[in-house]
């Protein structure tokens, strides 16, 4: 793989959580490269460090050691403010639990992300297309508790991509969905990747879901144990 092209480049990444007097090593020297427009699936047993990897790539937590380059940012040296900026425009998350703001309508949930990125006033030609692609056009004025799980997750995806992030991190996006909704969400992700060239990293426990990616990597004990 040509390293110069990678949009994510991780070398010797370690993350140690201190719990009381005990050090818990969540990541133990992980290496990973992701190319632009790639759809990468990540699988591995519970506790193997998958979410931790996302938290670091997404700027929610600093690495303990190692080198992590995301787009043009070096996360090892990035300040908290720098990581906040990274989350605004460069990387965004889709979570297993949807994580929509419960008091806001779907439309406002999406608007919050645009506001935080400072893009509120800029008209977005792609917005309508994204909304149509996700099939949520008629659900936009509902609050999350009036939406099905599948709809909530699609709104969450809309919110995640509304600012055209370089990287979309989806942590078990279908973990709380039935088969039918899972399929719909996975197809949306594949569409986004194919039509818009969206780089996507997806954690999943489900081999069928993993098959939507171009490539699957396996994690165990804080490392990548094989790729294909």
């Amino acid at each position, binding site marked *: 793989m040509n390293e110069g092209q990678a949009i994510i480049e991780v070398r010797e990444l370690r993350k140690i959580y201190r719990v009381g007097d005990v050090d818990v090593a969540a990541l133990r020297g992980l290496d990973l490269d992701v190319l632009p427009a790639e759809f990468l699936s990540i699988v591995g047993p519970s506790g193997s460090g998958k979410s931790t990897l996302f938290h670091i790539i997404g700027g929610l937590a600093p690495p303990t050691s190692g080198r992590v380059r995301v787009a043009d940012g070096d996360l090892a040296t990035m300040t908290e403010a720098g990581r906040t900026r990274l989350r605004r425009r460069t990387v965004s*998350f889709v979570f297993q639990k949807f*994580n929509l*703001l*419960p*008091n*806001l309508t779907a439309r406002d949930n999406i608007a*919050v992300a645009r506001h*935080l*990125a400072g893009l509120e006033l800029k008209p977005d030609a792609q917005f309508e297309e994204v909304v149509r692609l996700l099939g949520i056009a008629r659900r936009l004025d509902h609050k999350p508790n009036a939406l099905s799980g599948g709809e909530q997750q699609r709104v969450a995806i809309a919110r995640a991509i509304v600012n055209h992030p370089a990287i979309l991190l989806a942590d078990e996006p279908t973990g709380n969905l039935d088969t039918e909704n899972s399929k719909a969400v996975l197809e949306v992700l594949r569409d986004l990747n194919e039509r818009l060239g969206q780089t996507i990293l997806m954690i999943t426990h489900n081999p069928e879901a993993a098959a939507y990616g171009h490539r699957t990597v396996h994690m165990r004990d804080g490392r990548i144990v094989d790729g294909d």
Partner: protein
Amino acid sequence: MTIKLVKENMKHRPMRSLLSALLIGVPVTLILCLVGLSHGMVDENNRRTQGIGADIIVRPTGSTMLSLSGGMDERVVGFLAKQPHVAMAMGVVNQAVEGITLGATGIDLDQFNRMSGGFNYLEGGPFRGADDVIVDQYYAEQKHLHVGSTVNILNRDWRVSGIIESGKLTRIALPLRILQERTSNLGKVSQIYLKLDNSSLTNDVVKDLKGLLKDYPIYSVADWTSLFNVNNIPGLQPFTVVIMVIGIVIGFLVVYLSMYMAVLQRTREIGILKSLGASNAFILGIILTEALMLGLGGTLLGIGMSYGAYWLIRTLVPASFPLVIVYSWWPIACGITLAGAGLGALYPGFSAARHDPIEALAYE
């Protein structure tokens, strides 16, 4: 967007928001009532003093602004009457009936009529007997009195001989001699009013009289009424300050507790916002904005409640508590409340801003 987030949050828990604002409003009402009462009392007193038609007021030696009773020898009245340019001198006896806001005055009705042009009777007329009392319309309203009613004042029953339009000297007028007797003040008066043959000489005459009666506080009516203002009432300012501090403390505590709870309940939402790239300042801004909205709502409710209090007092006890609405204190009360609310939101706000996003997202 901050406003929208805050608005939706507050709408989501309407009871919490309303209750917080209501609690914050209580001290606002207290402040406004206290201020309204002191202004009302001062305005009312000054209006009645001006209604006497006197030019000069002579008070007993050593008296303070608020002392009502007490005494000067009645012969001082005669002495003053003989001074140049003094057309008339009238001694009265003041007696507290209810605290500092309501007093009765013993007058010689003939003298008073000559000085002031007389009361304007709405019902009945002058004293006819030794146990007669003349009351103004507000006292009559408060005590449900009519001509011929009996009313207990200073532990005695009096018969109402007349009800007058408010605005001259006193709300409760009793015959001077009788009041002197009943209060063991025979031969004494508590205040002397002078009318001059030429009002434009007032200041000169005050100066002359001060030369003659060294220790007596002597004022022109104009000076007296301008001196008698809310800033000069002893004890009022510290009392107002105490109420203001209570207002800040209540605002602080209510907002602190309310926002502390809100931050706990919204931990996950804070994590979500952070995952979307919200800065610490943005999170702090949301909490502060909500606190200020609560403070503002509290101020508005407090003002509303002060109108309720105004209506209640005007209806039930218009004579004892001459409450007025003092608009100039609205922004002050608002400032006090916002200060308390802002301070109360600081700790919850900073702790929300410092939340670790991963922990916040894991919060159930």
